[in-house]
């Protein structure tokens, strides 16, 4: 059988590795996954990378590929959803409802709020949108420490360098050294979506099989164990 | 083969402006420290591109600024013995010695390696690297390296300066042999009049970058009027023929109709030799000397007396062996009443003629 090459956002590694192992065991299809930032992967696909399937951490880069006609018609789906949470280093941090009344600035008390790059990295973009939507952004903008990805923001909070951070629920769930203070309302930011699509590079039955496997009950279990939400709608 | 050199080059604070011809044989470049000797050698080697000038070896033009000719150093095929060694630190002594061999045309490759090594006494050093050699050892390896490149011109920049007398005496004949047998022109930088007298075919005297005197060694050394070398160094060159080697260790020579006796020299009977008799080693006597140890007495008559700056005077004497110069005090000139035309005897001790002052007569034209 042919080998399927998947380009996937690096934040999906833990879940995807398990699913790939499962698929390989069940079907004998071998699957190679190249994990990197969504932007790097999208550019590589634009420039002729031998990828069969793309799993992006945001919709913007998938849109770019769609515009260039690099997606197999009708294969794009919104695969996963995620939530945005406020985390704290202090295990005793009081839970809070995050809304316009939430006094984040006081909570920070002069400390830093760790986020992914607010102009560039999806987790940061969503976080800034949410804070703006809630009217909190201006109060804390100067306190934000931006990192090159959500994982590093998580690390800043885990090590206590920053008392608070905004990360994906999936990240927070896996890090025992942080405490979730509250979840941002889903309507405070654009929906967090991980779209997937088959690319026009090749047309193999194994690709379709893999896409189907992503939606199998076993896969759902794996994704949900990581804190993702399996979305139903097509892209 | 004749090397002809016309050069001018300016360093800040020093200007070289020299023209001379170096005929086959050994041309000694003589001059004080900083007078431009090494600069001339570098220009001949192609390591310095002079501001202007022409350097040719017979009809092979090595460089000619007027015609834009410039032969790169590696195509000049010369052997340069550098004043400062310049041995290759990463190669063994043996590899240093044979470095130039492969570049010599196949037929002309020197097969004298063993011989050169033995002469220079560097056999035990062959597998060492130059880093830990003594000063004189380095210099000897440098000499060997240049000689073994089978060059068609040798540049020797004070090659014997760091050597002791015994070693000098071993190496000098080798240069003589090169001069005579291989007919390689040799440009030889030296401070030592003994070396000049022994080796030189012609002499170029540099002073502040200018050639102040240039001619055959006999003219330069024997001329009492110029003393670029210092009055002490005046002396006459005598050409003689070996007559016989006596059992008591003396060699009899004949120069003109005069017999001369020297401590045994290596040249076989019949061979032509050249000896330098330093003016300060000659005693003059108005009467035929008796009862004294000096064996060589050359009768002649005074042709000239040239008083020096100091207490000395140089007396030229015409003898059947040729012109002899004697440096004596002006007081003796007066006491003896010497005057031109007077008959006079030159007395020279056998042993006063130093071994390094006796050389084979050069084969080439002088």
């Amino acid at each position, binding site marked *: 059988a042919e080998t399927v090459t998947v380009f996937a956002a690096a*934040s999906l590694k833990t879940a995807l590795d398990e699913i790939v192992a499962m698929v390989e065991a069940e079907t004998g299809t071998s699957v*190679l996954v190249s994990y990197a930032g969504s932007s790097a992967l999208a550019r590589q696909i634009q420039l002729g990378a031998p990828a069969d399937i793309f799993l992006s951490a945001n919709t913007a880069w998938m849109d770019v590929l769609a515009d260039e006609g690099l997606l197999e018609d009708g294969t794009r789906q919104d695969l996963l959803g995620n939530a945005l949470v406020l985390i704290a280093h202090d295990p005793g941090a009081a839970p809070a409802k995050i809304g316009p009344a939430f006094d984040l600035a006081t909570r920070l008390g002069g400390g830093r709020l760790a986020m992914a790059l607010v102009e560039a990295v999806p987790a940061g973009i969503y976080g800034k949108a949410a804070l703006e939507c809630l009217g909190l952004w201006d109060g804390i903008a100067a306190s934000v420490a931006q990192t090159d990805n959500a994982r590093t923001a998580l690390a800043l909070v885990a090590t206590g360098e920053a008392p608070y951070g905004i990360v994906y629920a999936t990240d927070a769930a896996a890090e025992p050294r942080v405490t979730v203070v509250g979840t941002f309302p889903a309507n405070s930011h654009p929906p967090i979506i991980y779209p997937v699509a088959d690319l026009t590079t090749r047309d193999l039955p194994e690709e379709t099989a893999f896409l189907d496997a992503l939606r199998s009950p076993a896969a759902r279990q794996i994704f949900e164990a990581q804190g993702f939400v399996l979305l139903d709608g097509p892209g | 083969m004749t090397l002809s050199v016309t050069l001018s080059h300016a360093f800040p604070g020093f200007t070289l402006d020299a023209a001379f011809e170096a005929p086959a044989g050994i041309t000694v470049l003589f001059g004080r420290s900083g007078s431009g000797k090494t600069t001339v050698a570098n220009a001949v080697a192609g390591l310095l591109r002079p501001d202007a000038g022409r350097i040719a070896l017979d009809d092979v033009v090595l460089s000619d600024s007027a015609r834009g000719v410039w032969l790169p150093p590696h195509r000049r095929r010369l052997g340069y013995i550098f004043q400062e060694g310049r041995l290759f630190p990463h190669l063994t002594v043996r590899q240093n010695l044979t470095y*130039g061999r492969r570049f010599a045309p196949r037929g002309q490759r020197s097969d004298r390696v063993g011989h050169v090594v033995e002469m220079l006494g560097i056999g035990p050093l062959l597998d060492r690297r130059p880093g830990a050699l003594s000063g004189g050892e380095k210099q000897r390896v440098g000499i060997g390296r240049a000689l073994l490149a089978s060059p068609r011109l040798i540049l020797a920049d004070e090659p014997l300066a760091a050597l002791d007398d015994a070693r000098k005496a071993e190496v000098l004949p080798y240069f003589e042999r090169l001069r005579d047998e291989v007919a390689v022109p040799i440009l030889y930088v030296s401070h030592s009049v003994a070396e000049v007298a022994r080796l030189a075919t012609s002499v170029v005297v540099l002073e502040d970058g200018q050639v102040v005197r240039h001619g055959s060694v006999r003219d330069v050394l024997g001329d009492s009027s110029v003393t670029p070398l210092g009055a002490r160094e005046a002396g006459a060159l005598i050409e003689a023929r070996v007559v016989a080697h006596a059992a008591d260790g003396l060699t009899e020579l004949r120069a003109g109709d005069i017999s001369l006796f020297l401590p045994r020299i290596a040249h076989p009977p019949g061979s032509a030799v050249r000896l330098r008799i330093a003016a300060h080693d000659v005693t003059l006597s108005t009467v035929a000397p008796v009862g004294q140890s000096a064996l060589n007495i050359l009768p002649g008559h005074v042709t000239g007396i040239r008083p020096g700056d100091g207490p000395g005077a140089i007396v030229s004497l015409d003898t059947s062996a040729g012109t002899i110069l004697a440096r004596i005090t002006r007081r003796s000139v007066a006491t003896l009443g010497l005057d031109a035309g007077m008959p006079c005897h030159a007395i020279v001790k056998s042993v006063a003629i130093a071994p390094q002052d006796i050389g084979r007569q050069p084969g080439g034209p002088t």
Partner: protein
Amino acid sequence: MTGWLGPQEWQAVALSLRVALVAMLMTLPLAVLAAHALARWSFPGKLLVNGLVHLPLILPPVVTGYLLLLLFGTQGPLGRLLGELGIVFAFRWTGAALAAAVMAFPLMVRAIRLSIEAVDPKLEEAASTLGASRPWIFATVTLPLILPGLVAGAILGFAKAMGEFGATITFVSNIPGQTQTLPSAIYTFLQVPGGEGAALRLVAISVVVSMAALLLSEVIGRRVAGRVSGA
């Protein structure tokens, strides 16, 4: 993943070694040439060449990777040209080696150039008077004398190639067994919560390999230096 390292990680180790070695060896001659040109020749555009050589050091690696992708990708002008000659870099281990080589190049050139500048031109002159032509002098005098610099350059290049990540992942992505080098693998582990342990193991391997190479280079360097000083 069971055991200390999974097969995919071992693959990454093997690939990184191959990539670093090839990058180092292929770059060395070119680095020597560039270093020699910069140290000893004068030619028009020398400053430009010097700038170009240093470019990968100055640019963020991601930018270098992106430029490589643009140039040497299957769609890139050079990639197309070389592709017709059967040389493909895009998304192959050869591409990872190219990225590593490009990133290591300025380090190697600098080390070698410094060594060349320290060689006494008088020795080269001496060789020329003995009849050696320029290339021959280079091979028999200059090259042996710069060996310490060459070794230093090589080890810098190797270490850099072992650690290079940004340009590599941007240029040839992160495909296990094909372009996933150790640093890429480390990076991916660091992207997910709980991956630190696995990342740490890979870091340890990377360190051990590079230290072994470093040790080797020190030994070689010392032997070479000893030979030259003639002890």
